[in-house]
């Protein structure tokens, strides 16, 4: 039978981390869905709270992504960033949400804390147009630099806006 790692039995329950965050930053909205602990973090606490979580054992940044809540029922904010954290020793997960809004969706970069955030945040900038302050190299990741839109936003059509047809063709003579 596979044995759970020793650290898992010793580590504190996952909501104790939320309690620690609340001690430091005031009451935070949090919920559990399908055994998944989630906490909403105001954008101004972003780098400091993540540093606290990293100190408390969440050493692996699994994913940084975003959801555009335009026209989502009951949504109060336009963009919701998703930070998935995990601890490699304690075998726990925590989902942190940070909400930002137009006209200037900006949040602090986590690249100084986790190197993993570097490319993940570039992807979010590329596809959602969210700026990460303090990011060392905020360029587009998957789309060409000349692309003007952020296609995973809900107001961008599935078919695109004709970029495919207007794409510059580079010939051998003009490369």
């Amino acid at each position, binding site marked *: *039978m*596979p*044995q*759970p*790692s020793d650290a*898992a039995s010793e580590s504190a329950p996952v909501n104790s981390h939320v309690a620690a965050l609340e001690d430091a930053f005031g009451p935070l909205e949090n919920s559990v*869905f*399908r055994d*998944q602990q989630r906490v909403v973090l105001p954008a101004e606490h972003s780098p400091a709270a993540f540093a606290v979580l990293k100190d408390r054992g969440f*050493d*692996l*940044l*699994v*994913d940084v*992504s975003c*959801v*555009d809540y335009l026209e*989502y*029922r*009951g949504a109060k904010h336009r963009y919701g960033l*998703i930070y*998935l954290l995990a601890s*490699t020793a304690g*075998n726990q997960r925590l*989902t942190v949400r940070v909400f930002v809004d137009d006209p200037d969706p900006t949040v602090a970069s986590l690249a100084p804390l*986790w*190197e*993993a955030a*570097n*490319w*993940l945040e570039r*992807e979010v900038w590329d*596809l959602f147009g969210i700026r990460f302050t303090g990011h060392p190299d905020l360029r*587009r*990741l*998957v*789309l*060409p630099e000349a692309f003007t839109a952020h*296609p*995973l936003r809900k107001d*961008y059509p*599935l078919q695109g806006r004709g970029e495919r047809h207007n794409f510059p063709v580079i010939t051998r003579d003009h490369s």
Partner: protein
Amino acid sequence: MSIAPAEFETRPERRSEDYLWTLNFGPQHPATHTTLRLVLKLEGERVVDAMPEMGYLHSGFEKIGEHLTFNQYVTVTDRMNYISPMANNVAWHQAVEKLLGIELTPRCTYIRTIIAELARISDHLLCNGAVGLDTGAFTFFLYAFYQREVIYDIFETLCGARFTNSYTRVGGVSQDITPLVIEKIRGFLKTFPKTLDDMERLLNRNRIFVDRTKGVGLLTKAEAINRGATGPVARASGVTRDLRRDEPYLAYADLDFQVCCAAAGDCYARYLVRMQEMRESLKIVEQALENLPEGPVNVGIDQRTALPTKQQVYSTIEGTISHFELSMSNRGFEVPCEESYAAIEAPNGELGFYIVGDGEDAAYRARCRPPSVLHFALFPHLIRGHTLSDIVAVLGSLNIIAAELDR
């Protein structure tokens, strides 16, 4: 006569960078295996810096995921990591079922475990085979690829498709496993260990291979965690994280297997971890086949979550109704306005889907957490200071699949 020192200072300074040579590697290069590009700064043969660039295969899979229903989108997941599409199918529908709150039948969890492990074997075979191919061991590659062919045959017998399987469905799988498939898998279990022995004898102590991979592309444990490495890449650096053991999903809690780790963190360690994982996968498949539970493979049609079989559709009224309702846009699945993340230990690392539901049959947002992106971001860190010829060994050992990288 002496030259005034001031005159010296006005001359443009000769920087050490002036001696560097820039080389463009890819996006069309046989050793990248897929369309990815590296811009290398070389000093002689030594790589001073590398700038990876991706996006040549970007097809907007996540955008498409917001427009296809949960059952349709499985065809797109096939095309993400096309080296092990079965693992992607399992990952996608596991995430969907978590959001929808569907409990699978025991038989289905075992079948999914078996195919996920076969997918792991085929993925590791290709990855290690390609490392061998790129470092000059062509025979090794042929041994590996022949066995992949056997697994393709098993998948073809199982679901009719060799490459893009699209085998899973919400609440089940497209076809039950047949005695013929079980026989073929048993045949594979019998013959494959011998091939693995041969493969290990070919490369494990091969002087050329060991010289080209040992000590190359070093990744320490701290760096592996900090840079978000998962799967065999992290385990070869001493990170003992394996979702099959840490967060047992499907039938893994009932099965006995080891988590394969190494401490060295170089290309050779990654090769060894993958070789060892194939043996563990064989153990898992063998146990799962022995203990394969009887009973229905899909969630019952009364629950209106899994598509009924054609037999049920054509011969029972419940089947017909269920099939119709699941195909109608306003009568399909009951999707909560919630969001959840589920991940599996894919051959490459942690492959997860973050799905946002808004009551519709299609996801509001279907984020795929691809292991390849974080592994490709590792590349400059691993290659600095090594020579040009080490690039193929490092790139191969990271097993980057561009279709999954760019999505």
